[in-house]
């Protein structure tokens, strides 16, 4: 975090630094080391680092620096993506032999995917969905059923899980066309509770005990959950799997960003702001809502399939109402309607949860307390949503500025500038 502050000082002196690809790489490096140290260190140290980082982000946000960094990333998309990918590939290998740490890292990535899905509903469209864990459960159970009960490859289970959770999302989405607000919350809550109960009493999926012995994923005969020795260093078994999850997370984030900046994303935000106004503007409200539910469901289903592959087990206790609350808590903590913020929130809470495993009794209390405090102190989350700025994405200079060059009237110039 210190380095970022240095970067800020540099900007004061030399504005061009913030506009160079080196700043992007520097930011990526700082993020990389932060994540690395938080994951690898003891719980006291890691909690301390996280607290400092959160405070620093809140402080820096006051100077609008977070937004500037975002702009920077968007402007240097390619540099950011390539350096990020390289670091993302290095990251799993840096964890080496530490099985537990690798497990935490994988969990955090999977929760990140689930939270991205929940964000479509909660953040973008403002429909509080209390059933993300049920979607995750559908994904996980389809992998488990495919591999344990039917003896098929888990990849087929994953495909089936994605399709099923999409269909389930569509079905849940249907009542939302008629209801809103509390009623929608109650419907999703009822579905979540009913899901847990149904899974518990259905003997085919193992009832209370769940299905264990889920096959691990394999890629072209290359086992993704196995100890490998690379350059003489013994890796923990989750490393290849972690790579797979990171690949999925990057893909999901990319899609989420594309959706956010697309016409559908704007339509979703319009529906969130005012449904009647959106209807008047010619936005197909029901289509938009259904889209949010389906894509969110597929994301959560994907997270569930990955989760089942990691744990080798799918049981009713893993996908209950508490898990849903945890996911909601992650989204609110990170910042609604902001993909990066959501993933950040997922990382923070997942790591806190796992690091505090020794104090399992306090886990729920921590979620509850974080939610209560966050909602009062900072309902927008750590990194709140940004004002949309399309000129940055298209990278095209807005036409208005081109006109500006020809114009000689200074007053008009100033006026146009303020418009931009």
């Amino acid at each position: 975090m210190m380095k970022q502050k240095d970067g800020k000082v540099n900007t004061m002196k030399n504005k061009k630094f913030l506009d160079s690809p080196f700043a992007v790489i520097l930011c990526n490096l700082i993020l990389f080391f932060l994540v690395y140290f938080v994951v690898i260190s003891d719980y006291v140290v890691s909690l301390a680092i996280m607290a400092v980082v959160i405070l620093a982000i809140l402080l820096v946000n006051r100077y609008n620096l977070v937004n500037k960094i975002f702009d920077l990333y968007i402007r240097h998309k390619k540099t950011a993506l390539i350096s990020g990918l390289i670091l993302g590939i290095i990251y799993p290998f840096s964890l080496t032999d530490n099985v537990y740490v690798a497990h935490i890292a994988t969990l955090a990535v999977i929760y990140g995917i689930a939270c991205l899905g929940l964000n479509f509903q909660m953040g973008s469209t403002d429909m509080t969905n209390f059933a993300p864990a049920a979607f995750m459960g559908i994904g996980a159970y389809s992998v488990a059923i495919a591999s344990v009960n039917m003896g098929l490859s888990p990849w087929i289970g994953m495909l089936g899980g994605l399709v099923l959770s999409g269909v389930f999302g569509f079905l849940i989405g249907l009542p939302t066309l008629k209801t809103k607000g509390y009623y929608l919350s109650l419907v999703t809550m009822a579905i979540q509770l009913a899901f847990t109960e149904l899974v518990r009493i259905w003997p085919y999926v193992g009832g209370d005990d769940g299905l264990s012995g889920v096959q691990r994923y394999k890629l072209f005969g290359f086992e993704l959950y196995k100890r490998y020795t690379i350059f003489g260093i013994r890796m923990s078994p989750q490393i290849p799997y972690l790579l797979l999850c990171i690949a999925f997370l990057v893909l999901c984030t990319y899609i989420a960003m594309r959706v956010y900046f697309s016409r559908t994303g704007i339509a979703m935000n319009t529906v969130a702001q005012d449904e009647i106004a959106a209807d008047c503007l010619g936005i197909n409200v029901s289509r938009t809502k259904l889209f949010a539910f389906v894509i969110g469901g597929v994301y959560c289903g994907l997270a569930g399939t990955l989760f089942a592959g990691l744990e080798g087990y799918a049981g009713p206790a893993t996908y209950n109402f508490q898990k849903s609350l945890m996911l909601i808590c992650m989204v609110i903590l990170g910042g609604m309607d902001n993909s990066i913020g959501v993933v950040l929130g997922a990382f923070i809470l997942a790591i806190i949860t796992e690091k505090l495993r020794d104090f399992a009794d306090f886990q729920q209390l921590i979620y509850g307390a974080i939610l209560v405090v966050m909602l009062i102190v900072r309902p927008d989350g750590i990194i709140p949503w940004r004002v949309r700025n399309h000129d940055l994405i298209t990278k095209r200079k807005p036409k208005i500025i081109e006109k500006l060059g020809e114009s000689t009237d200074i007053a008009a110039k100033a006026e146009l500038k303020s418009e931009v």
Partner: protein
Amino acid sequence: MSRFGNLLMSAILCGCTYTLVAIGYCLFFGVLDVVVFCCGDIAIFGAFSITGAFTIIWSAGVFQAVPMIVAVLILLVVASILCAVLGLITYRISVKPFEKSSALMPLLSTIALGVVIKEVLGLIFQPVVNNIAKGVVRVDDPKTVVGGRNPQSMPQLIATGGSTLTRNLIIIIVVALILMALFFFLNKTKLGLSMQAISQNKELALMTGVNVKSCIRWTFIIGGVLLAIGGFLLGNYQTIIRFDGGTMYGTKGFAAAVVGGLKSTWGAVIGGMLLGFVEVFTAGLIPGGTKFQNVIAFIVVIIFIVFKPEGIIGEKVAEKV
């Protein structure tokens, strides 16, 4: 016949417990237009505070000195005060800060507060009660308190030593009395009428001289007392209370309130009874239906929300632009 009679009795009892929570939801929703979701947890808190107070008061020898009914009333007063305070805290922490923001914020916030109440109850119930008992009565080993995290046995305070039938009848009669008192309060007293006025139109009520702020506070106090009694009856009916029972209890209560119509108190009664009947009769009449007991309630709720979201009693409100 006797089997059917038994089923009927337990259906009514189940409905009674849901009704009290549902009325809590209706009161809060009527006055504030927000769903206060930790009603179930407040009720469970009431049940736990009765258990704790029972341990302390019993050790102090009050039960041996005064008639049973007086001692039970003392317990109820203690629990009511605690629950009313908790209701006010709920209002301060999770409802008031979100007066101007989206209506879903207080919902989320109260759910989170419910989790906090539940977990704190599970964590500190035993040490706190033990220490108070030690400090007040100088008993070194109050044996009746098992940890809050375990299922806690509720002291049987209604019709002690009598049959379950007597106990059940007393519970039903108490609920009926409370309902009558509540309707008298809502329709005949000044405070109840002003609560109804606020429920219908807040600005107009403010203009006609209703003290909205104190009215809201009183609503939370009354709601807390109602929920405390609800928790007391629930504990006596189920004989065992769990610290995390509030989530299910609260969700079912909310479901009952929605089925009946969120704004009407009669609706809460009807919804609670309907839910109780559906649950008990599914478990009792359909073979193997016990498993589906919890699921069926939620399916009924989903059907109701999709096809009749305004509830059984409740007028359809067209959305204003």
